């Protein structure tokens, strides 16, 4: 496996943003997650929960609610606007002002013709969903006090609105309020504070379920307007509710970080008198659970502690399978770190700024496992602040460290950097070609002479760079247009070391390779069902290696335009089950110049070197055998060793890069550091403390 000098970087203060809202589209199996910074992330549940798309946020956008309508995504927030997103260009398509003050909730009826929004001024506003836009239709009866939550009856004839101290039920036809359900306040000192109905759910059997700030989940009969059952589940707030598709189960998220499940169960067997009974409690969060989704097989929850948790319901899935494992999605599935491997610089991407660091140095030598003393501390060279409200969506630093580029949804900025004897000068390149205005991914060629960018028009822009000006060289439009329905954004770019090839992958799973000399499409890889998560071209052999969300690895020979023998044998023998069970995708692939057979891969919890010269591991053999190999004799070691050398020494990995001087840069972000930056959780009395 070899020994490396490792730069263990922990000074990347990456801080994910709290989850504010979620919406799940059952037909496409896509989950939309809105973060506190206004970013919207799309996860594909059919493809191993891969984070396909990220729509960058804006500092003035506070999303309170999300809503899917037939594959279209709407959001509403405290800015008072309804925004529809363009999921191909990864930016808002348009926004409509509701003129009702801040919007707390948005909900579409099951016929998906109307969009109801609840506003601060006490109105429920109806918007008609048209082909290309939405249009205001009318207001329902205006109430005193804000509308916090909304839920449509599945028939679309009624709509329940959660307010302060009460729930209103409106007739959607006439717009009049038909019922007023008064919600009891909390006991004791909370009696004087008004109770906020954070969430309501309207079921098809005319049952309304509400969750409120007094910690109650209440079941109401919407026909008579009476309370059927009261469940006090927390001392704090019940922030969210979600109902399963068949309406037999409801989950409620609380400020304590628990998710409580209620099930409609027959109290005596064989009878139909279903009662809502509190059953399970899941505690996977430390902070508020703000957003909840009840899929057919799992409870998906997210909140202040920034984690997205997928907790499978064990009565709905097969036990001890990949599906039944608890998943926590902590880190983005794309790298926020870029490394100038010749200059030893690291570029960290934050929503509103970039940080460029020089790595520390050490002159000491040591044994394997030693900690070397740092002679020169790592140094923050530049902090590049983004101007404007839009957040940074991608960034790159050239391998020589002399160029830095980043992009927001509206513009691309390119900087020329000069580092000489401690003097740092940075100069913005003012005249950029007009094709470079909104890109999803940026990449420099290895000799830093070209900048590649995947533009919003599903094309790759190639720009050549010289000393002081950036001349527009070529725009490669045509290549992607020949494939039907592939206007999806390009999320991966990788240039070969020798400057011959450029590989690009989009979220539909298509991977294209361009010949950079001829500036035209060289070949297209067979489309694999799972989305690629990392691609790289081998510097010497010219093979394209791709890792996919379902943990498969392919190697494609660009010369022969076919899968290599190694890739075929890997498919034939299959990957090790433990490898397939990992729940974070490979986010980076790199090669060792000195050992061409070695491939470097990493995900959030492990770092792996695949030695293509060694045999593949058998399914029944141990995958993580590095420790065992150390103890056995060299002869046996040869027999036992296999291609996958896995190192779990580094955890919560954001990035691993191989520098030109054959040292590794490992960027870690320990969870404790993230937790320490979170606000304190609600105080809970713990027994025996």
């Amino acid at each position, binding site marked *: 496996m070899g020994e490396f000098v490792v730069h263990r970087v922990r000074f990347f203060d990456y801080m994910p943003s709290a989850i504010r809202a979620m919406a799940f589209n059952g037909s496409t199996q896509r989950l939309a997650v809105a973060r506190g910074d206004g970013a919207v992330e799309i996860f594909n549940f059919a493809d191993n929960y891969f984070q396909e798309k990220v729509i960058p946020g804006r500092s003035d956008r506070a999303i309170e609610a999300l809503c899917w309508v037939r594959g279209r995504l709407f959001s509403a927030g405290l800015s008072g606007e309804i925004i529809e997103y363009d999921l191909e260009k990864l930016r808002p398509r348009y926004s409509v002002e509701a003129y009702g003050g801040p919007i707390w909730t948005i909900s579409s009826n099951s016929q998906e013709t109307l969009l109801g929004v609840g506003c601060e001024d006490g109105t429920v506003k109806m918007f008609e969903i048209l082909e290309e836009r939405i249009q205001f239709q009318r207001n329902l009866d205006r109430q005193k006090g804000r509308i916090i939550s909304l839920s449509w009856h599945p028939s679309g004839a009624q709509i329940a609105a959660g307010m302060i101290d009460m729930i209103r039920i409106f007739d959607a036809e006439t717009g009049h309020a038909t019922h007023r359900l008064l919600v009891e306040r909390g006991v004791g000192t909370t009696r004087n504070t008004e109770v906020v109905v954070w969430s309501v759910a309207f079921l098809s059997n005319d049952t309304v379920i509400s969750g409120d700030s007094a910690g109650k989940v209440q079941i109401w009969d919407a026909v008579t307007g009476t309370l059927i*059952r*009261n*469940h*006090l*589940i927390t001392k704090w707030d019940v922030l969210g509710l979600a109902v399963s598709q068949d309406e037999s189960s409801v989950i409620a998220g609380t400020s304590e970080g628990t998710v409580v499940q209620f*099930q409609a*169960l*027959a*109290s*005596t*067997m064989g009878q139909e008198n279903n*009662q809502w*009974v*509190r*059953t*399970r*409690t899941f505690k996977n969060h430390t902070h508020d659970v703000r957003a909840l989704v009840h899929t057919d097989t799992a409870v998906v929850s997210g909140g202040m502690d920034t984690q997205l948790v997928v907790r499978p319901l064990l*009565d709905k899935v097969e036990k001890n399978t990949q599906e039944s494992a608890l998943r926590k999605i902590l880190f983005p599935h794309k790298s926020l770190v870029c490394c100038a491997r010749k200059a030893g610089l690291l570029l960290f991407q934050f929503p509103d700024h970039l940080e460029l660091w020089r790595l520390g140095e050490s002159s000491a030598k040591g044994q394997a496992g030693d900690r070397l003393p740092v002679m020169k501390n790592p140094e923050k060279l530049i902090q590049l602040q983004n101007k404007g409200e839009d957040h940074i969506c991608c960034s790159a630093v050239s391998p020589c460290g002399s160029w830095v580029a980043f992009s927001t949804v509206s513009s691309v900025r390119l900087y020329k950097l000069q580092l000489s004897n401690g003097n740092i000068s940075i100069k913005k390149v003012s005249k950029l070609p007009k094709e470079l205005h909104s890109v999803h991914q940026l990449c420099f060629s290895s000799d830093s002479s070209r900048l590649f960018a995947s533009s919003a028009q599903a094309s790759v822009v190639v720009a050549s760079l010289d000393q002081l000006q950036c001349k527009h060289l070529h725009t490669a439009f045509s290549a992607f247009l020949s494939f039907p329905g592939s206007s999806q954004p390009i999320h991966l770019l990788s240039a070969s070391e020798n400057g011959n090839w450029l590989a690009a992958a989009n979220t539909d799973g298509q991977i294209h390779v361009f010949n950079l000399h001829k500036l035209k499409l060289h070949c297209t890889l067979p489309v694999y069902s799972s989305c690629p998560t990392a691609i790289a071209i081998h510097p010497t052999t010219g093979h394209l290696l791709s890792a996919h969300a379902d943990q498969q690895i392919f190697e494609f020979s660009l010369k022969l335009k076919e899968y290599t023998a190694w890739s075929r044998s890997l498919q034939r023998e299959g990957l090790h089950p433990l490898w397939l069970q990992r729940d974070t995708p490979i986010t980076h692939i790199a090669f060792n110049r000195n050992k061409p057979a070695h491939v470097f891969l990493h995900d959030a919890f492990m770092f792996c070197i695949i030695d293509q010269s060694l045999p593949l591991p058998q399914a029944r053999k141990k995958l993580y055998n590095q420790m065992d190999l150390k103890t056995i004799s060299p002869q046996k070691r040869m027999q036992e060793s296999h291609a996958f050398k896995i190192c779990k020494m580094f955890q919560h990995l954001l990035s691993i890069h191989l520098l030109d001087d054959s040292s590794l840069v490992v960027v870690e972000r320990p969870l404790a550091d993230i937790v320490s930056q979170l606000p304190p959780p609600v105080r809970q009395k713990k*027994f*025996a403390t």
Partner: protein
Amino acid sequence: MFLLCASGESVKVFSTATEECLHALQGHTDLITGVLLRPSNHLQAYSCSLDGTVRLWDFTDGILIRTYSIGYPIYGIYASAKHEGVIFIITPMHTDTNSELFQLVAVHLPQCGEQLVEAKELSAVLSNISSNPAASAFGREGQYIVSAKPLQLEVYFFKKHKSYSFFLKKDNQKGGKNTFTCITCHPTEDCIASGHEDGKIRLWRNFNHRKEYTYSTLHWHHSAVSSLRFTPEGTNLLSGGVESVLVQWRYNQESQRDFLPRLGGAITHISVSPDGALFCTSHSDNKITIIQSCVKVSAVIQGLVKGDRIRTDLMIEPRSKALVLNGKPGHLQFYSLQRDKLLYNLDIVQQEYIHESGLEQFEVVMAAFDASGSWLATVEERKQKAPELELNLKLWAFDDQKQSFVLNTTISAPHEGRITALCFPHVSDGQTTMLVSTSRDGHFKAWQLAAPAHTEDEGPSWSCDFLGAYHSLVPECCCFSADSSLLAVGFQEVVTVWTPASWELLTTLSQPPGAVRDLCFGRLSCSKYLLGATTSRLLCCWNLLTCSLEWVTSMDVSLLLADPLSENMAAFCFEAGSTDLFVFKPGEPRPLFSHKALCSGRVTHAVFVPREVMLESCDEASQWLNCSHLYFLTQSMDLLTFITKAEEDKLTASSKQLVVSDDVAMTPFHLLLGKHRDQLENPQAESRLSVEPIRQPSSSAGINELLQMPAHVLPSASFLCSMFVQSLLISVNKPSEQNKEKEEEMESEKEEEDSDGEMESRISRPEHMPSGESGCAAPALTKEEVRELRRLKKLDHSWMKGLLD
């Protein structure tokens, strides 16, 4: 209301109103493991026992109706109204009793009228279950039966003949233990409540699905839940555990709960009356608490409090003649031996006891009364390890107004080491003003009652008067002579004799090797003798007049005791795993009485209890019992005593219980022991309790019933009269078949028409009750007892007549 409680080899019937034990249902020959009301007749109850029989009782009158012989030890019994004529029992899977595997067996009870019936129709329902009777339960309307193994819940549906199993992981992430401890089912809904080792309660639902079953978790208890019970309507769930807090959960509103804390010892069982008006908890400290459904304690039935261990000596409080020993943690219990009743608990430590294992708390380790009973000295300590030992010596004065002891002086850290002995002088007249304590720190201290020097309003208090030591040896024991003129302190191998008047060391006596373990002065005519037991298995007797060794004998004395009213001394000797008792006079080397192999293990606690009335016994072997009883506590914490033959006869006659025993001198003190021993030896022994309509306790049930019956339902007086006369006649040679006929008749009538049958049976009962008893006990009945019974009947009759007139 009646309360049934399995207690050793008998079932005790208590009145819930008066807390009194009305009678004991006796007949089983081994430990009773379960009591159950007969579902089809709430005036009858089943009991099962390890002797392999199930007995059906009429518990209001204490009559054994029928005995079903099963043939295997029975560990639990269940029945349901749905399953007429069938009971379900837990028996070992294999015939050898050491087997760890148990099965639930359905027994079809034959419907014949004989007294002793052999039930042969057995069919296994569930196999490989837990022997704990709390781990199985009937579900709603007897449709299914649930049984819990350590980590598995099994539900068997009778209709479908199908069972479902649900498994739990051994440990959850936080280290809690998921092992099932007890189980109960909701009476009207399909919900199973299970208690777990880590204090969680799980409510299982949807358990007729292999996969879509679900449960919710309730967690309040911090240690294992030992008992769970739903109220008859199913509105509440009761749970209890080692915290000794009864928790009442509202069904479907589980966040609302009521607590009844400080019930005493750990709750072992909970029972609910069929009408739901009363709850009942039994506790590990030999106590039953009756609780109203508004979660208020209404009555407490307390036996001898069973503590974790007895550390004080057994003592007799001189005023009330009550036995005093460790009771509740931090308390001394005052227990009346005459009435078999706890008088009161005296809180010594005066700190809240926390029910948590492994927590070091203050314990009362030593106590002593002075001769007149006006002073009590107690020692409490915390921490077993010597460096952190916390000691308190407390002196309590008897308050005539309060009729109780009140704290007079607290001496914190009276010694630097653990106190080994505490002794008041025997002052026959006037006030005791001295106390001697010896400690491992090498000193003995004399404490003096003295008026305070400069405060007027406070009464006299105790302070240290003298500190004695001898060659920095550790004193192990001390003893005052009968006239209190001498104090003997045993310093390891050396016995030192001091005069308390001037605190001079008079002489030293020594008999090496072996440290002196126990010292005792002789009484009355033998007061010149000092006896000492050493660790080198010697019992030495010194003559204090000559300061020489009078005699020495080799025996491993574990306890040496002097009778305060006679010259007799008792020595408990440990020999080959069991204890022998020798009673002797110090002057004579010949023992008055000896009893080999009294019990297994060492006897470390015993006491002579002075009799209220002296006995004039001429039997030589029991002469030593004339002045006092001797009570002793065995290692298994049984309290035993010796009684004379005459007393035994009296006892058996009064309790109408026949003791067939060749052992002349020793009989277990049954009344006291039954329950006590049961709980000690068999912590799992089922004491299921239940309650019945109210009835006055009375000596003669038949007359009582007649009196209580409303006049309008009574048959004509002439009919009654003949019945009465018949009932009072005792026919020794009456054939027992007749009885059986009667009973059969009674049974059938009962089944036909409830109210009529009831009345009929009540009337017929006085007639056959005594005869039935004589029938079953005929072989052992002697002429004397017959006479005794007849005498009793006559008494009753005259009293009755007086009332009628």
